């Protein structure tokens, strides 16, 4: 069974999920004794192609077309590659760019789509593990089809390293007619005066704070600890803190000595931005909150009771 995995890159660098896709693809190819093909589209495909010649990769297809991601180019190129390689499983990343082309490709190729898979197995057919209800439950889905499109969640498979002996070849693809979307550029989110990636100690606040006026309590804690204040996404969405304070997949990736998560449940998108912290401490009322799975220390309790006591300890 042939597996075709599509790499992800941005602004000249292959993204981590590309190396993880190789592990996931190899896992499936091994289960069926098949080949793993990897494709990279746009950008410096010669350099990317060399880097994707990883342990376990049988073939690398490079598609030179433009510098950066454009979903019309990606969708068209993946569909053309699919026709050429005829894979049983088409693997794509559940990244922001994956979200922007994988569903269109699956629909155009009439493939069932299993998105955001965190694990899978193959025994005559694909069984994928997915999460539902904001990671509160884990589900398995069986796919009764000979061919399937799957997007994988970043960070769930190890990154593959080690050079392989893949055949690297250029694949010619030119889109038909004019593109319906044009990428005009990139911008970093507002920097502001604070760089949370520099902080040794972060006090990070989440949805558990409930009201904007309660933010003062956590600010007071940050002051008492000599820490910098950061937050999870809902606080920034609500406009209570500026975007440069946001930790997570769509915010900043931080690696402080101490990360104190206050009223943060630990959604996967948040964890992606802070799991590299040396010491993680969580204060949350829900003992089953995923943040406790990665915490080193925790208090299962009401932040409105614990935080004032903690401030007291340092004043």
């Amino acid at each position, binding site marked *: 069974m042939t597996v075709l995995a599509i790499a992800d890159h941005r602004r000249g660098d292959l993204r981590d999920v590309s190396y993880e896709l190789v592990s996931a693809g190899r896992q499936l190819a091994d289960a069926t004794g098949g080949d793993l093909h990897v494709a990279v589209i746009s950008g410096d495909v010669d350099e990317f192609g060399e880097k994707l010649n990883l342990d376990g990769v049988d073939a690398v297809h490079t598609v030179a077309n433009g510098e950066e*991601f454009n979903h019309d180019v990606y969708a068209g190129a993946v569909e053309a590659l699919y026709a050429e390689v005829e894979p049983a499983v088409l693997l794509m990343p559940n990244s922001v760019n994956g979200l922007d082309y994988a569903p269109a490709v699956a*629909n155009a190729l009439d493939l069932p789509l299993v998105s955001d898979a965190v694990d899978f197995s193959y025994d005559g057919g694909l069984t994928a593990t997915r999460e539902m*209800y904001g990671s*509160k*439950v884990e589900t398995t889905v069986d*796919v009764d089809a000979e061919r399937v499109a799957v997007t994988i969640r970043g960070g769930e498979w190890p990154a593959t390293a080690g050079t392989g002996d893949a055949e690297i070849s250029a694949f010619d693809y030119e889109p038909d007619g004019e593109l319906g979307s044009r990428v005009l550029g990139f911008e970093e989110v507002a920097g502001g005066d604070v760089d949370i990636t520099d902080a040794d100690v972060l006090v990070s606040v989440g949805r558990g704070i409930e009201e904007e006026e309660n933010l003062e309590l956590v600010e007071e804690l940050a002051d008492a*600890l000599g820490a910098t204040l950061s937050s999870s996404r809902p606080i920034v969405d609500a*406009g209570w803190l500026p975007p440069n304070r946001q930790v997570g997949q769509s915010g900043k990736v931080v690696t402080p000595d101490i990360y104190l998560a206050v009223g943060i449940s630990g959604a996967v998108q948040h964890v992606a931005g802070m799991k590299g912290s040396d010491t993680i401490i969580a204060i949350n009322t829900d003992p089953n909150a995923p943040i406790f799975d990665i915490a080193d220390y925790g*208090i299962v309790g009401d932040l409105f009771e614990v935080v004032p006591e*903690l401030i007291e300890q340092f004043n």
Partner: protein
Amino acid sequence: MKILVTVKEVAEVEDDFEIDGLGIDEAYLEYDLNEWDDYAVEEAVQIAEAGDDVEVVSVTIGPERSEETIRMALAKGADRAIRVWDDAFEDVQLLDVAAKTRLLAAVVEQEQPDLVLTGVQAADDGFGATGVSVADEVGFEWAAVVNELDLDAEGGVANVRRELEGGVEELTEVDLPAVLTIQTGINDPRYASLRGIRQAQRKEIAPMGLDDLGLDASALDSPIELTGMREPESESDATLFEGDAGETAAQLAEVLREKGVGAQ
């Protein structure tokens, strides 16, 4: 112009819950408008308020209970609503992306909107794929994970920012008609006013079955079957401090001091 907004009633799960077979026991579920869709509704209503002659139509796939949710969209300013449902749905175990695409694409074909707004994903099944899939099916352009929208209807384009990972935004121009999947934070969704809620009672919610959409029960067929549901095993090896707030805070303070926190 006409804007079609897809909304979904999603189940929210309480902190403590029980799994019953392949679902969560009803007693632990609360139903609400999907968070991402709330932002999509707000974006559509703001466009309508800023321009003349803009109609906002909201569409949902759901049983009668979901009328409560779609009335929220009407109360916030949508002009009318469509609810897609059919007896055939009762037997469907999992409405996958392809099935939802067939249903919503049929609505798009009938309504012929200039713009379709959807949430990036639904908080329950989290496929994050329906909007872009529908765009492909109806031959519209699209953009996923949009956190800023500047519509130039006369110029026939939407200028959007897509929120990439790592605090980077992509600036993209998309031809209309288009489907845009809306990210939270793009705006500040309003609360439905009492007046809006009263007005919503008088607005139309048109029921549509498979026949009305020119489809039959095969449109619901899916090769994807839900086969298991469980609570994820906790991998926690955290040291949990025990006691009342004062005691736990004191223990945590000790750890923090050992690590040099608070030393001025």
